[in-house]
């Protein structure tokens, strides 16, 4: 059932989907050809995914706001809960798509793009989870228009702030892999960001469900 709501979101943006998926493929190549952070392709991948997710989510939200389709869906057996959960699933599906596209691209043209490693994947997922973990509940609470304003500033700052932050980490020789001082095998440590991301996503979803349950549609 949920997947049908995700498909609905994808259908809403189908006109732009192809262009954006191409962007997902060439974005990282372009970024790593211009600036070389030498960090396992993290910056390129992260920025591409963030931008992609933000644009798609923004467009879907715009349509939701314009057509008020949620009212009809919530009057059907879908209910409010499915509607909220589908939004999270949508973000996740797009993320998975980006990963797959990235892997395919790196197989096709291994010279232009770095292979995706677990750390890059984990960090990207974690940051994505934090940003949308905040953005989605905020949007359910305050509505599309106000959130647009808030996130406009946020997205505006991201390209400036994040490379700087990551650069700072690197210049101080702090690696993400050793920020977890637990005696776990390396493989588990590498998966910790992914796990954290899932936890944040779930917490955010519970909050969104609570907010949306009290909303008049």
């Amino acid at each position, binding site marked *: 059932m949920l997947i*049908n709501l995700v498909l609905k979101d994808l*259908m809403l943006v189908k006109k732009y989907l192809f262009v954006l998926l191409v962007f997902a493929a060439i974005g990282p190549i372009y970024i790593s050809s211009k600036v070389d952070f030498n960090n396992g392709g993290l910056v390129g991948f992260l920025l591409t995914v963030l931008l992609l997710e933000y644009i798609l989510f923004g467009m879907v939200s715009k349509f939701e706001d314009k057509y008020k389709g949620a009212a009809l869906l919530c009057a059907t057996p879908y209910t409010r809960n499915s509607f909220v959960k589908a939004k999270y699933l949508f973000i996740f599906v797009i993320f998975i798509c980006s990963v797959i596209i990235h892997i395919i691209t790196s197989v096709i043209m291994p010279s232009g793009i770095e292979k995706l490693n677990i750390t890059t994947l984990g960090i990207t997922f974690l940051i994505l989870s934090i940003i949308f973990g905040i953005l989605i509940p905020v949007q359910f609470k305050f509505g599309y228009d106000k959130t647009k304003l808030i996130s406009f500033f946020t997205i505006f700052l991201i390209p400036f702030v994040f490379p700087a932050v990551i650069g700072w980490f690197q210049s101080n020789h702090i690696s993400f892999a050793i920020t977890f001082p637990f005696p776990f095998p390396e493989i588990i440590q590498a998966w910790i960001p992914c796990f954290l991301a899932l936890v944040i996503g779930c917490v955010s979803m519970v909050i969104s469900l609570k907010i949306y349950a009290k909303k008049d549609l």
Partner: protein
Amino acid sequence: MTPILEVKNLNKTYNNFSLKDVTFSLNKDCITGFIGTNGSGKTTTIKAILGLILKDSGKIKFSGMDMDDNERKSKNKIGIVLDEGYFYEELTLKEMKNVIAPCYTEWDEAVFSAYIKQFDLKLDQKIATLSKGMRMKYAVALALSHHADLLIMDEPTSGLDPLVRSELMDILLNFMKEPGKSVFFSTHITSDLDKIADMIILIDDGRIIVNEEKDELLDTHALVKGDNRFINEQTQKLFLTLHQSPYGFEGITRKKKDVRRLMPDVLMERPTVEDIMLTYIGGNNNAN
């Protein structure tokens, strides 16, 4: 008669409007017309029933079960047509159907296709390009293709031409042929109800004013016309509304026998639903 939907003491307060203890029930096998002026609380009531707005208090039961506790189960048996459609206009009819259909366990593609054919709709057309009448028909097709027991419609006829409205009435009567079905629909175009409604519920300023069988309502009330000389202090009290012109008077009464007795030479006609509505709304009522 068994009720299909029961609404008890429904309250909802907004800044400048509130529903006050709205209570009624809908009978099985009946078409119930929900009438009132714009802003009287029709849409708010319907949205509260469907859980689209949160009620401050009150109970809503569908087929005997509490709707809050059995949301999925009850909504699975309800068809909805909302006034503004609330469709994703960017999508085609088929795409929108593909979104809606999977949530109903009893979705019947054959029924849907039959409606689409009957209504002359094209599945690959964008919803945004539909005319108002087409859009309503599409909404009806979506609402009636999952074997719903109750069809709830919010202002389905507003802004439609008389031909399309009468087509809709035929569709509803056709739907009612199967036993156990019910229709609840709000409208401010009461002429639709003269033909097909079984029950009439009138809401005004968030309060239920009238809740009666339509024919009973029209039988007990009469539109009286006659010479002004019949109107005096005593006879005036017989009327719920009374309008006088230099040529005569016209009024609505609920005391047909008394009027016959005291004013033998007047014309008494069956009123329309609209006459009744105008009689009872907006503090127009000088009875009681």
